[in-house]
């Protein structure tokens, strides 16, 4: 593990947008000048104190940051092992971590003079966050959402509409997040002059993976300070759920060079990773490929055709993963595991009963892995888990899975 900046894990990506072999800029020529311009503008903003002052002002007064680091006393007692802390990003305005990143991109879009914002969304959290910030700044907002997700995330669709966004159901492919991303890219390629593409996760062509990570890194920065304040030392294990991987990258990044901190990412195991690709575990069940502008681990068949994953959680239902995660996986800095739908559902209910917190299905995956490891760890082992979203949006899905009759 590194002790100096030359061997730091935090210097990526390189000038070609690569984390090792992962990342890059695999886009059509039409988009190339746009992402180069975006990169230049982001590089400028990144070192501009006024940009960050605006971000912090909005994080504080609009989002409600810092989010608390909460000692989950009853879950800790229930598991009987490690001491469990939850980073409460579900308490953010709009109910998830997504708004951390959206604010950054929208402020950047405004600096670039863009008037029309497009976004893709899976569970709808990124769509709601984008619609929210667009409403706040009076920007036109178009959200692409897989038709299947429009159906299973109806409350979020209505929220976006209330916020004045246009929600476009995407019917190509199987109508999930990957197809929504395809259509958002098609929109961008068509409306190159006035449109800003606000990507919701640490994927896509460079500079998106690095930029989104930098905006989400506020999670890890706060958690690091809060843990030091609460316990006088860093956590032993940090853990987060991964679809594209933005909440996880946000928590992990500020800890990458803390060699004593064990990092665990939890992918969606769906019906089981060995069970005919009925999962979304790109790292545990996929191999490197090129999609949506970057090289990363992907679910694909032997001919390089992208496969549709499965997860009970719409927010994790993506056949790829952010390229920096692929790199952290390959170099062994982070451990990646998977959790099934059934395990996540159990953790969801446990969290409701033990802590009075209704978690989203995404962090329920992380909690399910905590449930596996915590009982076997010593009582002074500190776990920090990112509670990246609240579960209001998921109650219909959970009710259905539990066989509960509910009028939706």
């Amino acid at each position, binding site marked *: 593990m590194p002790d100096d900046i030359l061997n730091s894990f935090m210097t990526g990506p390189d000038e070609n947008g690569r984390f090792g072999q992962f990342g890059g*800029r695999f*886009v059509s020529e039409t988009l190339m000048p746009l992402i180069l311009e975006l990169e230049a503008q982001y590089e400028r903003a990144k070192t501009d104190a006024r940009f960050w002052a605006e971000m912090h002002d909005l994080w504080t007064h609009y989002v409600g940051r810092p989010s608390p680091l909460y000692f989950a006393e009853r879950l800790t007692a229930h598991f009987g092992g490690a001491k469990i802390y939850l980073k409460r990003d579900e308490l953010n305005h709009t109910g998830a971590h997504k708004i951390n990143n959206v604010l950054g991109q929208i402020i950047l879009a405004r600096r670039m003079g863009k008037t029309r914002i497009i976004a893709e969304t899976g569970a709808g959290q990124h769509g709601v966050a984008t619609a929210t910030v667009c409403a706040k700044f009076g920007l036109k907002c178009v959200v692409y959402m897989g038709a299947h997700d429009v159906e299973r995330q109806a409350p979020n669709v209505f929220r976006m509409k209330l916020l004045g966004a246009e929600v476009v159901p995407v019917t*190509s492919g199987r109508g999930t997040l990957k197809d929504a991303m*395809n259509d958002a890219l098609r929109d961008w*390629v068509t409306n190159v002059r006035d449109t800003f593409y606000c990507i919701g996760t640490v994927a896509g062509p460079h500079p998106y993976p690095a930029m989104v990570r930098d905006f989400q890194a506020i999670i890890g920065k706060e958690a690091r300070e809060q843990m030091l304040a609460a316990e006088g030392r860093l956590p032993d294990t940090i853990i987060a759920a991964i679809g594209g991987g933005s909440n996880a990258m946000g928590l992990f990044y500020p800890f990458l060079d803390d060699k004593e901190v064990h990092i665990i990412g939890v992918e969606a195991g769906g019906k089981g990773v060995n069970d005919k690709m009925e999962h979304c575990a790109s790292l545990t069940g996929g191999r490197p*490929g090129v999609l*949506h*502008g970057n090289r990363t681990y992907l679910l694909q068949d032997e*001919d390089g055709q*992208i496969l549709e994953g499965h997860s009970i959680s719409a927010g994790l239902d993506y056949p790829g993963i952010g390229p920096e995660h692929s790199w952290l996986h390959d170099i062994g800095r982070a451990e990646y595991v998977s959790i099934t739908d059934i395990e996540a559902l159990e953790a969801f209910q446990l969290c409701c009963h033990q802590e009075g917190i209704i978690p989203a299905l995404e962090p329920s995956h992380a909690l399910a892995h905590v449930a596996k490891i915590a009982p076997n760890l010593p009582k002074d082992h500190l776990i920090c888990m990112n509670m990246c979203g609240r579960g209001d949006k998921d109650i219909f899905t959970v009710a259905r899975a539990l066989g509960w009759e509910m009028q939706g």
Partner: protein
Amino acid sequence: MTRIDTTFARLKREGKKAFVAYVMAGDPDYDSSLELIKALPAAGVDIIELGLPFTDPMADGSTIQLAGQRALEGGQTLDKTLQMARELRKTDNDTPIVMMGYYNPIYSRGVDRFLAQAKDAGIDGLIIVDLPPEEDSELCIPAQNAGLNFIRLATPTSDDKRLPKLLENTSGFIYYVSITGITGAANAQAADVGPEVARIKSQTDLPVIVGFGIKTSEAAEAIAGVADGAVVGSAIVSLIEQGKPVPEIAAFVKSLADGAHRAK
């Protein structure tokens, strides 16, 4: 000299513009797709663009995306697409075949292995939509070293600053994308395209062929008139989508080719 270079030399001698036709390999099934491809040279097609099906064609409109889905559902694979080229080569050793698609199926096969197989199958050039010059070390340079043309897309957003970078490692011809957008969308306008083609030609000796948004014989003539040729894809593919028989599709292709060849 690849078949592409030879073809453009012939067209120049004949004082003709090029007509390029795109079809998705294996759409709607292997046999009828092969039958159509074999009929293209006689219909006046100078260069065949053979679409490599991909699940996530981000730069294409619904016509091409659905064609790819039909092909994949019909069992089309990279091996079968290469086999189609081999079959055509049994009866036609002159018409260039350019494989057009996305990088992942090629990356998945392995670049060196793919290039050897493509060369062996009689493929002459590649158009890979999601490989801009910034990623030239991936496939562009290895392809040129293997003797395949790597044909670049230039677009309305490729400004004068960027053009030299685009032209640097390209060969065969330049494919100018007439609109900002996806295949099969808005109509290409000769009045807009002409100055752009002239701008590109001031920086290269390569032929400039224009595609996207060309749907009729008249449009092919108008666009070819301001460039070195025209490409039609979605308009042909939509006849396949409608289930038209091969002779009827070939007749439509001939009308497009005649349009492009009428251009001065």
